[in-house]
């Protein structure tokens, strides 16, 4: 019984997939930085950045709209910015019926800019995780000076997520098998249900603790003494440097556009 968290990685034979993970990570971060740094209302720049994202998706053999569609998940958080069109001072462009709330032009521009920035940034993240296996991203992070111990911890976590999620799902299924939908006075109280959930969490914790002890013993048996050692996996080729250069050029265009204004 496998609980597949649907790993974000999509194996493909593509130029992007073949790139050094360091290049992909750095380009993704630069893209996000460029996007987030764009001032409000730079519609052409946003448009260009979107085209770049579509091009990357296409070049990765994922289909140009792969990330574009999936970026919806970031949207719920947009509610935090919802007050802005109503509260930002400026000429009113629209008045909401019934309640009479006014939407200002600058407020609308700001709100849409935030929306677009988020949408674009999420697309970059999606493309990174779709074209690069997580262990490779972690390796790239360690090379870029993120502490090796932390990277190892994340690596272990990634390995055991699926096993522990399996155990959690089994617990949830066992619980639903034992608790038919009761209504009325016989329905268990909120507090009781919460405590039950808490005990499931506690029991999962114990199992995880015990498993970590066994994993540690297995590591000891193979010579582990606290050091974190990784084999060098990737070498930057000409294609990698070229890709980095190209990305730099592509990202410079919207920045240039903005500076010209």
């Amino acid at each position, binding site marked *: 019984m496998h609980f597949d968290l649907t790993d974000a990685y999509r194996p493909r034979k593509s130029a992007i997939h073949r790139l050094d993970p360091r290049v992909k990570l750095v380009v993704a971060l630069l893209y996000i930085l460029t996007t987030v*740094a764009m001032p409000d209302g730079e519609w052409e720049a946003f448009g260009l950045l979107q085209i770049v994202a579509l091009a990357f998706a296409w070049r990765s053999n994922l289909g140009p709209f792969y990330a574009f569609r999936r970026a919806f998940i970031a949207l719920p958080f947009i509610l935090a910015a919802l007050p802005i069109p109503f*509260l930002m001072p400026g000429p009113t462009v629209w008045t909401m019926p019934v309640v009479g709330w006014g939407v200002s032009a600058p407020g609308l521009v700001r709100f849409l800019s935030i929306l677009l920035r988020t949408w674009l*940034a999420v697309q970059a993240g999606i493309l990174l*995780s779709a074209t690069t296996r997580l262990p490779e991203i972690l390796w790239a992070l360690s090379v870029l000076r993120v502490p090796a111990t*932390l990277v190892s911890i994340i690596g272990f976590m990634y390995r055991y997520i699926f096993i522990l999620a399996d155990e959690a799902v089994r617990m949830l299924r066992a619980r639903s098998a034992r608790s038919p939908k009761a209504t009325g006075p016989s329905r268990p109280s909120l507090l009781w249900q*919460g405590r039950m*959930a808490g005990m499931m969490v*506690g029991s999962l914790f114990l199992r995880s603790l015990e498993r970590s002890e066994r994993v540690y013993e297995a590591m000891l048996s193979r010579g582990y003494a606290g050091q974190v050692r990784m084999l060098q996996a990737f070498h930057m080729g000409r294609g990698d440097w070229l890709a980095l250069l190209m990305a730099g050029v592509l990202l410079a265009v919207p920045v240039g556009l903005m500076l010209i204004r």
Partner: protein
Amino acid sequence: MHLSGTPLHIPDGFLSPVVSIIGWAIALAIIVIALRQTRLQLGERQVPLMGVLAAFIFAAQAINFPIAAGTSGHLLGGALAAIVMGPWAATLIMTAVIAMQGLLFQDGGLLAMGWNILNMGVFTAFAGYAGYASLRRLIGEGPRSRLAAAFAGAWLSVMVGAIATAFELALSGTSPLRAALPAMAGVHALIGLGEGIITTGAVGLLEVTRPEVIRAGEEAPGRLGAAFTLGGLSLALVVAVLSPLASASPDGLEFVAERQGFLRSALEPPFKLLPDYTLPLVRNEVLTTILAVLLGTLVVFALAWLMGRGAVRREHARES
């Protein structure tokens, strides 16, 4: 796609680049300290132990209990991790969880990850631990007092994370403090109850089955750090309230309060559940909210303290 149970993962695009980078700098500094502390505390076990426990937190966030009409309560986990492992280990564990959620599932942005780590990793772990430890010292020993303290610590952890998030959004000009703070604080006051219940349930189980784990958590390094963090955060809160930040910002927090009498009505909808959320006497909305939050915190602590004291007295009576 995996979505976490609480709405605290800030995506990219909501924090200005400057704010993001500051967050990363602080987060990295704290991570480095945490790595050193856990190496002292756990030795060579640290990598497999924290790695598997991070996977546990991730999986545990999926364990829910139904509240009402399709919504359910979930665990964030920072407080629980801190109670059983100490705040520094908890910081690393939550960092791993947040990194995974951001990298793999875009639950939280990459540039914003610095602040996400601080909000959901550092602040929750330390606030949760400080709440737990200080309440236990107040109430006294005994399993019931421990549960009460765990409840309070867990609730506090969620509140601190939420309030910090609101301030970060305000500083970036993405969400006006007058709206973000009450909304975040209000919603998370409820979510915090769920966190408290689940955390208490877990700690209760561990007390019975593996008490030495709980004891180890209480002796973990970080007590002083937790006290400092909570003190520091409270100070920051006070400063922020009194400073011009609360009503104006570099970028766009210049919101006109009397704009068609809108502000009051904008704040009302989320608070039908908490009718007396704002104290009638105080004028400034932000100050009101902060006072209400502090008051709420004090009430929760007082309740937990009373519960714990009552239990301790009953236990003493039984023994004598």
